[in-house]
Every structure is written in structure tokens, then in C-alpha cells.
């Protein structure tokens, strides 16, 4: 009905990723094509650190939806970003167990150290900071999620070391700690598989 003003031309994200696109679409049954919506958003966000409106429209086009529907879904979830986040997107859990382990102080530390407030990206695009809710790391609290990687039992010294590494554009291997029954280096417990 009404005529849309054409948007400035942007090379479609999936123009050179047709194989990947087909692979994602093929995961779902034909009648469930729309299920590919979240994976496609992930795909774009992973590459571009946010999902722009042009990409929202592209995904809508791929799935035969209105852009509004894609936006409605995307904005529902906490981890899709409208604006670019940093190369190191720091997500601090402040929910109860982490809070009891000092997460609020950790959050303040990051704000001061990086001169960022919740939701900001620094001008170089290196760091961004987001407060998030429970990450399921309550037994190894507090937790700092950097992009998709968890860093657990983040003490002040560990946090400093981590920031230093990222400032040098390296991301150390995460510490895989389990706590409880299955702490790899926990005192041997009955039934534990150490």
C-alpha cells in the first residue's frame, strides 16, 4: 500500500554466506522456518556485535516476515544489541549469589577501571559493560562473562589480570571450575569422580 522510501543500499549480510544461511534454515522443518529467526540474529550479532535495522529487514525478508515482527522478537531478549558493543563485551551478574560473593563491588570496580557505566561502549570500541541477571554460575560466583566466555570466581586480582590481557587484545583461557562434587582439584569426596 504505502510506498517505503528505499533505505541506503547495504550489502546484505548473507549475500556471501548463502551456505551458512541454508544450513541454518535446514535445521528446522519447513513449516517452522520462522524458528531460524533467533539463530540468524545470533549470526549477525556475532559478526557485527549488534543487529542494525538494515539487518533486521534483511532477516525479515529471508523469513517472509515484516521487519516489525523481527524487531519485536529481537528486542524481547536481553542479549541482542541494537547498537554495537565493544570487542570485549563484559557482562556482570549481580543476582543474589553473585551479589553475596561481591559482584556489586566487582561491578563498581569495572565502572571505575574502564570509565564506563552500565550499557556503554568505550570510544575505541574495545570494552562495553552490561549488568545482567543470573548466569548460572552461583556456585563459582562472582562471574564475569566476556562475550560468550565465562570467567568465574573473579577476584580483584583475577579481574585485573583479565582486563590487562584484554587491553593487550588477548583473551585468556577461562578457568573451568565446577565447585561441589566435581571440582577437578577439590579434596577427594566420596562419589566424586576426581
Amino acid at each position: 500500500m504505502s510506498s517505503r522510501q528505499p533505505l541506503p543500499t547495504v550489502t546484505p549480510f548473507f549475500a556471501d554466506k548463502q551456505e551458512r544461511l541454508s544450513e541454518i534454515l535446514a535445521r528446522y522443518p519447513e513449516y517452522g522456518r520462522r524458528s531460524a529467526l533467533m539463530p540468524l540474529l545470533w549470526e549477525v550479532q556475532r559478526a557485527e556485535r549488534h543487529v542494525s535495522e538494515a539487518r533486521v529487514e534483511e532477516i525479515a525478508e529471508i523469513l517472509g516476515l515484516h521487519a516489525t515482527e523481527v524487531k519485536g522478537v529481537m528486542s524481547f531478549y536481553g542479549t541482542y544489541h541494537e547498537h554495537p558493543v565493544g570487542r570485549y563485551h563484559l557482562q556482570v551478574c549481580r543476582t543474589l549469589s553473585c551479589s553475596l560473593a561481591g559482584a556489586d563491588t566487582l561491578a563498581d570496580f569495572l565502572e571505575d577501571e574502564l570509565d564506563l557505566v552500565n550499557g556503554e561502549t568505550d570510544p575505541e570500541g574495545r570494552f562495553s559493560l552490561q549488568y545482567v541477571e543470573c548466569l548460572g554460575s552461583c556456585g563459582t560466583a562472582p562471574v564475569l562473562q566476556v562475550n560468550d566466555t565465562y570467567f568465574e570466581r573473579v577476584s580483584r586480582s583475577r579481574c585485573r589480570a583479565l582486563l590487562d590481557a584484554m587491553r593487550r587484545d588477548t583473551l585468556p583461557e577461562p578457568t573451568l571450575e565446577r565447585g561441589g562434587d566435581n571440582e577437578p582439584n577439590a579434596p577427594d569426596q566420596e562419589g566424586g569422580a576426581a
Partner: protein
Amino acid sequence: MKVTVNGTVLELDPGTSAIDAVFAAGFDVPYFCSQPYMSPIGACRMCLARIGAPRKERDGSWILDESSGEPKVFYFPAMMATCTTAIMEGMVIDTLSKDVKDAQNAMVEFTLINHPLDCPVCDKGGACELQDRAYEYGTGRSRFVFDKRHQEKHHPLSALITLDRERCIHCKRCVRYFEEVPGDEVLDFIERGGHTYIGTLEDGLPSNFTGNITDICPVGALLDATSRFRGRNWEYDHTFTTSLDDASGSAIVVDARTGRIERIKSGLNPEVNKSWIDDGIRFGHEYADDPERLKRPLLRRGEGFEEVSWEEAAAFVAERLAGFSGKDVGVAIRADATLEEGVAARALAQHVGTGQLDHAPRHGPSLVPLHGATVLDVATADALLVLGDVTEELPALDLRIKDALKGVSPPELFAHGVPIADLRLKERMPRASERLAVVAPYRVDLMKYAGAAVQVPVAGEAAWLQAMAAVAHAQPADEAVLGMPRAEAESLVRAWREAQKPIMIVGGFVLASEAATEAAASLAKAVGFRQVLVPPMANGVGLEITQVLPSHARYDYQGMLGGSAKALVLSNLNPAVDPAVAERLRSCELLVVHDLFLTETARLAHVVLPGTSGYEKDGTMVSLEGRFLPVRAAPVDAGEARDLTGVVKALGEAFGQRLEGRSVRSARRVLRKELGFDPTELHRLGLLRELPRRRAIVSLNVRETVVGDSLRVPSLARPEYLGRNAHLRAALGGPALRLHPEDAAARGLRTGDEVVVPVDGVPRRLEVRVSDAVPRGVSLVPATPEAPAGPAAVALDDLVHERRALEVA
């Protein structure tokens, strides 16, 4: 099923919702998210009640209450939303106890914490469901001491609809509406939780049916932008009438204030438009208030006009008419005139003694099919073949077709009306697209919903229909013409034959051609379709059955214009847009034009009589299904404008004759005899009648149209008034020349360019719209009352570029 509501026992059908049980029992419960004709979702939590039901033992017997010996009622542990609860045998519903009242108070309080209490400046004030419910069910005070949520106010969702996000109470009616009714999800919730708001990324809400959300918004969040800040609900005169914008017979409510139409809302007619109207009907009324409206009769004086009284004008016409032989006089009226106006035109023609009488536009073939179907039949069809672009031509049918795809039959009505919560309706219901086949010469909107969609060449409908009929008769058919493999065509035919209620909807492209119309009838006969024929204007059926028709084909409207009439009386017709016709009209000895505006034709007239719009007259129309519906005048200041009965009254007085049809009442005396009922007594929802089929309808003396490879296409916005409907025009754009991207590129045309291009020799000023829905080599231009839907010759080579669209950054 036996249900007890607050002690009142009643018997209701299984499947009834508890909320309808409450209303059926004569009680009230507040609700915001439920909306008739839409899925119940239980979101607003206003309709909570305490509900219990008896339970059965494993052996099927009722568990009995030891003291009474009656089945024991087990109450649900929590209060239930009555809108999403189905009744059960023996259910007990309590909406009056203190617990329930407390919960209702609490829900009102929750709902109000973020709702601005700006009722005194809100358009919805006085007609607001939240305001009413807060008075009825709230405590009258709020304990919320914080700042309310601040969000965007006056947000233009489109040129037609303004959103105030602070007022939104998240009932989701509007969001559900777009998914469930037109099926275009152009509006959605954005964000979540306390930050949720409604929004769109589609510029201007691209759907033909956006305005309905302003009717169903329970608060003042979604407002008709054309009427915002113009009046309060209690200041309006509400006139329940029938739209004359198309032949659907859609119910509308015209809200007028101090003599001016401020807005049009949807009326409720369960058998026709339910409670939905398209944007053309809703927003297309602004022309009626145009400052250029003719308010007094005009008499030619030299090159100009002089305002005169009706008596003077009529006396002039009567005197001049006396100089003609009756048979040289032609009378033609537009096909949205009422039956009463038709009677008046007929009476005038009879009086002067002419057979040159017609209504236009009309097709050659009759609009009364051999085996007709009703709108309700369409809504309950299990196989539909749509020929043409129904979404634009008769939008109300588009929605009823989508009803049929959902497969939910129209609900039984309660004493309190349409069910508030029809539990058969769900969010995101599957649509049985295999029930729908759509055939059109370009990609029409309805094809998105169709299991089979065939794009035929321009004027290729007859060949396609003949080929399908051949398939139905097991004869050879060309697959290229069928547009599908023969096996698919055969399975379509099989599905149509096996359907219980197969219906064919025949649009203007087919009716424009006698051959195609005949082919459609043959195919219908071959597979058992009943037909719905789409008239080119509102009362085509009515004017046909009341015989506002010429005595001979050569005396039809085109014949009159072609020279068979020396004196012409034209009502709301503007043939002089065609320069060739204008040239002929200049030599017309007497030209009387009855119209709302000083049109090209009126400028050539000797006498111009001010006419009334469809909102300003009383009368009767017959919709496409043969439903007789009342048209009622809203209290609008139209100066001295009169409808055609008023014209005939004035002329009759000048003749010294009391003509039939000199008033609505006198016309109805005639109609009563002919129809067997008195239109005065029509119920507002109309009367469905078996129509007389006149096989020997006078066919058209078809003008030699150059059949080009382009098309005049229908539009829900009446092109003759689009220029005077500022909001609608802003939303839809001007009358469009639609072109395939390659054709546009080849001529350096861009969307938004303004051009003048000859259409069948008539220069038309159009706005270019590039669209891949248009086939290559085809131009689509809007049909008009003078040149209805059908093939056209668009001379792109003679196109004049008037103004380039602004470069998009």
C-alpha cells in the same frame, strides 16, 4: 450446560467462555484485553472471578457434598480469568464476593499506575473503557507515589493513526488485531516487561485495515489522526448508517459535530463486516468537508456562473427541457446513488419521455448471479476462487475470505451481543491456504494467503477460465494458459468439486469482459461454485434491479455521451475528464450537472446543482449479496445541497407535476410496491432478499476501448475524491502509476515521480510507484467511476515528467 453465576442459574452451550456466561446472566465483569471477534488471551487479568466446578469420581458419578447431597463444588485455588475459562457442567462463578472485588480493585490500581490521568485532555475521555472501569471497579485512589512511566506521546504510527505510548495499557488488542484479522503483522510489542511498548518498523503501517485499531483501543493510546483534538465523544452525533464507498454494505457510524463529519468508526454488522472497515471507508470522508463543496445552485451566465436559488435553477431547466423532444434527453446517475435516487431518476426520465436512462459505471452482464452466495457464505466457504484484486476492490470481502481460511464459523450471538471471548479463536491460528485460489493479472495481496496463485496475462481471465472449464470437462487444455501443470489444475478442480461450499468471487477484471464473465459462469456451473459478483460501485445491484437502465443498448450512458442525447442530466458523473467527451459536451444543448464539486463536467454545464455526499442522504442501498441496507443522513451542514430526490422535487415543482421519487418517502412508496416491503422499516443490519435476475439486462453499448496491455485497477481509496482526502492521500500516496522496476528504470522513473500520462487517451496525473508486483510491460493505473477496472492503454511513450521525487539520501 448448567452454570450458576452469582446464584443465577442458566443453561449455555458447551464451549461458552465464563465471561460470556457472566454477561449472559446479566452481570458485569470488567475486561480490557478481550475483544469480540478476536482471540481471548487472559492478559489484563481484569475479569478475574472465583470459579468452582463439581468433580467426578473415577466411575463417572459426581462427588457429592455430604451435607446437601448435591454435587460438591470444588473451587480453583486461584482466581481465574473468565475470558480464558470454558464453562463446565455445574460450574459456579462468583464475581461479587469481597475477594473478587479486592482483586478487581487491585488490577485497576495496577493498570492505572502507569496510565496518565489526563482524561480531561484525552480524546477518549468519556468513551474510555479504562475510565469507566476505573470508576466502576477501582477504589478511586492510587497508592502509587512515584513518577509514571514516561514514553513518547503523539507518535505518528502513520498519517492516519497517532499513538500515545504513555496511555497504552498493553491489552494487545491492536497487535493481535493485525495478526488475526488482516493477517499483516505490521505492529508488535517491542522490548519486554515494564518497558514494553507497541511500535512498527513498517513505514505508515502498510495494511488496508489500520484504522480499526483506533476503534478497539480501550484507552486513548491509538487515535484517529484525522479527528484528534476535534471533539469529545459526548459532543458527537452518532449516525449508524451504511457506507456507500463500496458494495460491501459495511456498517459505519458517522460522528458529526456542529454540522461537520469529524470521524467515521466501524459499525457492527455480524453478517457483513463484523466490526471492521477498511481505511478507505474510515478515512475517506474528508472530501465531504472540502471548502470547495458546492452549496448553492449555479446558473451559467456567459463564461461564468451565478449563484441562484433552487427555484430559479429548476425553472430554467424546466423551461429549457420543454424545448426538447423527450427522447433526446438523457439522464445518468452514478452507481452509488440510493434506490430512492434511482426511482427519482427513473421518474424524471419517464416524465420527459426518454428511454435514455442509465447508471454508471456498470458492466454489461447482470450483477445478479444465477447461483449467488452471501458474505457469510464467503466467510464459511471451504473452497474459494478469487478472480481479481478483492483486497482493493472490496476490502470487506478480503477479511471474510481470511475468516474462511481460519475455518471458525461465525459465533452465535448472545443477548449481550457478539461473544466477548470466543474460545475457538486463538492467537496465530493456522490458515488453510489450500482453500484459496487467486487469479489476477498482477501479484495481488491476497496471493500471500493462497494455496494456488495464478498470474494471468492482461485480459487473460477468459482464456484461463475456459481452460479450467476444459480441465473440469476432461478436455485438453494448454498448461501455459492454466499457469500450472495439468495435474495441479485437476487437483484444484477436484478440491472444488469435493468442497461443501465452494465459492467463486468475480471481480471487475472479469466482469469488464462479457466473454470472461460467461466463462466464469461456465466454470462455476462445471464445478458447482456459487458466485459473488463485485459491483463497480456501491449500489450497482440496486440500480440494476430497480431498472435504472436504458430502453435500448444505444441509449446507455456511453451512447448519451456519444451524441444520442441533446440534453443531459448527469448526477455525480464527470465524463469531461476525457477531453474528447468534453469537446462533445460543449455542443450539448442543455447540460445539467448534479455534483458535489465544480468538476470538469460541471464547468461545461448550463446549470449546476449542489449534491449530497453519501453521508448526507437518507435512502437504501443493495449490497453485492442482495442485502437491502438503510443509508441515513448524518447531521451535516451541506448548505442547500440535495440528493437526487431533491432535484426531482424542484424540477417537478417547476414542471407543475408531482413526480414519483420527489422525496425519499415518495420514492419508497414506489419501492414498496416493487419490492414487496417498505424500506422505511429496514432493520439497520439490513434484509437479505432473493433478487430477481434479469437475464435480458440491457448490455453495454461498449465504447471502442483500445484494449491495451495495461490495466485500470480498483483501489479502496476513491480516486475521484483522493485529492480532497488529505490524510488518506498522505497515507496511501496519490493516484499511482505502478510499473515493474525494469520498465521504470528504462524510462528513468522512480517511485514518487509525478507524471502526466495518457490513459485510453485521457491524460492522467499520476505518481510513479515502482513495484515488482507488476508484470513487465504492464502499467497499472487507478480505475475511476468513468473508467472502471479493466484493460487499458497507457501511453508511456507520451509520458510527461512533471516532478522528480526527492533524492533519497
